[in-house]
């Protein structure tokens, strides 16, 4: 086995050790159960026009709206509703803008897919272009990119003026 792999693996071990020492303990996957208020406060927007999620507004501002919305969530949970049902309840109350992110259906799906589609199309086009260039490349004549610095007529004029001014001083 090449030395580099062995050294690399040892370094990896060291990094894992460091991470486990420094970072949180490895976590087990969370079991699915009834939603909590925290599950929803991160996914709903406060309606006090602060532009923050319920969770953030509740903590950072004296806001009566976020408090009452959190209470509403608790009431819905107490009625045994699922996360989706609670979200629907808030949408019916406040409109779609209460959701912190668009739904992954209908027009909202465009929000989620367009960025990745754009990158995929861009990546495909770039790969195709590079492949084409590499395939069609002609004789290896490489030009220099270093351009000589030429002061130009304006520069020469400035030099002359600077020289004249110096002479006057």
């Amino acid at each position, binding site marked *: 086995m090449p030395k580099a792999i062995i050294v690399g693996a040892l370094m990896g071990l060291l990094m894992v050790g460091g991470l486990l020492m420094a970072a949180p303990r490895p976590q087990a996957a969370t079991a699915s159960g009834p939603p909590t208020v925290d599950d929803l406060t991160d996914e709903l927007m406060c309606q006090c026009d602060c532009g923050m999620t319920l969770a953030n507004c509740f903590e950072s501002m004296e806001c009566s709206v976020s408090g009452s919305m959190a209470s509403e969530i608790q009431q819905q949970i107490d009625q045994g509703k699922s996360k989706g049902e609670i979200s629907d309840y808030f949408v019916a109350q406040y409109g779609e803008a209460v959701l912190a992110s668009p739904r992954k259906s209908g027009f909202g799906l465009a929000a989620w897919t367009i960025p990745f589609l754009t990158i995929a199309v861009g990546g495909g086009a770039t790969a195709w272009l590079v492949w084409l260039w590499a395939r069609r490349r002609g004789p290896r004549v490489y030009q220099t*990119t270093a*351009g000589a610095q030429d002061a130009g007529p304006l520069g020469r004029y400035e030099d002359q003026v600077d020289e004249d001014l110096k002479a006057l001083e």
Partner: protein
Amino acid sequence: MPDLGHAALLTGFVIAAYTAVASFVSARGRVGELWLSARNGVYAAFGLTTIASGALLYGLLTHDFRIKYVAEYTSRSQSPLYNFAAWWAGLEGSLLFWAWLLSLFAVIVLIQSRRNNRELIPYVSAVTMALLAYFLGMMGFAMNPFETLPVAPADGMGLNPLLDNPGMLFHPTFLYMGYVGFTIPFAFAIAALMSGRLSTDWIRASRRWTLFAWFALGLGNLFGAQWAYTVLGWGGYWGWDPVENASFMPWLVGTAFLHSVMIQERRGMLKVWNILLIIIAFSLCLFGTMVTRSGILSSVHSFSSGSAGPLFLALLTAVAAGSLGLLWLRLPALRSENQLDSLVSRESSFLLNNLLLVGAAFAIFWGSVFPLLSEAVRGVKTTVGPPFFKEVTGPIFLALLLLMGICPLIGWRKASAENLARNFLFPSGVGVTTGILLFALGMRPLFAALAFAVLAFVAASILLEFYRGVRARRRSRGENYAIAVPRLIWANKPRYGGYIVHIGVILIALGVVGSQMFATNVEATVKPGETIQIRNYVLTYQGLTSYTEGSKEIVAATLDVQRGGQSLGNIVASKSFAANREEPRTDVAIRSDPREDLYTILSGWSEDGSATFKVLINPLVMWIWVGGAVLLLGTAIAFWPDARAEERLPVTERVPAKGMRPSHA
């Protein structure tokens, strides 16, 4: 004083507009006398903008409450430092700060270029002065910072309590330096297009400015993150707010630009792409300023609406349309001097890096404007908030990090299989071992283990680069490690400064992944003597005190902290109430170490002495700030003047011409 300030603004507007026209005409017609006049116009515009700024500052510091802006953002009880910071606290003042920075940068460029880039400089001045004229015009005629009140109030409103923080001194100033800093490489690009000097001159001339703007924007964002973390009291540092996004997007595109210009400098390629990138970066800076100032998107940062939105939109449209039109006209002259040789080459990996950086910026832009689009198309308001941005950008940033490790390992032009095997073995070993072990030890979610594995891979690839350089120096010069490392860095500052910046990015990413994936919190209402437990911490509530500090009423809760049975001392979480504001400010108690932050928020209290706390454990957050410091160090090294730069020839110059095999890649 208000009259003097306003007069300086109006005169500055006339001078800047004249200078823009004179610079352009002198460059086109090669009229030397006119250029000399324009050159003096740049200095005069700076002088007048400084006078206007001085007049506003005088008003701010002497409590001249006749001036509406002074009455809105300062007060007698506010410290002089924050009265000074009120310069950029409001819409009109921040426009003046923008203009003053721009005029200052225009003067510095002029002084720097007394001996070089003389064909470009008149055009650069034309662009900067045209922009300055627009800003001064906006203030002179629409958003006057010197507007006076019919009756001066006895005292001013003072800053919003949330702004009464050292972050106010650094966060906006660095962001503005970044935004305005990007004007200079943009102006050089436009100068190159206007003058037809489309070689790498404009890139070399503006490289430091790009680095400066990129660095200032990055640091401004980090200062903002730190401020939000310590003051807002929600336990986070990045809220994916439209205004935060607006300052992040040009930084991402600027990062792409900094990488792709290397290909143009070395291979004479991507000329159109580089100009396009800097146009996008600068347009995004204007977009960011527009979003902050117009209130067009719902944000915690927005100031006001009024005429700012349409005026910025008009400027943004003119800049984008004008520069893209100019680029279109010059397309035939912007052909690549060379072409890519292989899909597996550093050039290709840089292209992919560009694609992902611009893709990430696009994803954020798309999310930011989607609510407007949705309303226009469906007539239904939607929100695009943190969950969307985290989910969409997470995979893109992970891919970017991976690429950050891959790029330095692939040779320029065409990487051989041997080259790839030799370079990838060690970092891959580190990355794969880290990932497998973390997963096997139970780290979930998988994304976290994957992210740590990628970070380990990138760290190893950078370490390898340093090791090779040091080994070469040891062999050739017999230097020991302590001497070889600094000399290696000093011998090629842009390259190793860049790697140090990458180390900073790794550390920031480490903190982000740790805190995003493994944070935990608990909320409890306790009486004095009762405890709150979170992981292995036990917090014992000692009691509540209230006292006055200056004009503020402060309510503070003291808690004794123990970890694993060991006492860590007391922490104090508080809320402060400013005299003239209803809204209190949360001052979080943060106990930070390399492993995690214990973050305690005083949420509320009752008359019976009980208090409600939210306590969070945010793992690895300290590394975000350490990463920022490393980023600062790396940028400073890369920025440092390099006397040997001229000795390093582009790769193209080392390659033999027609019919001859290159000796090395």
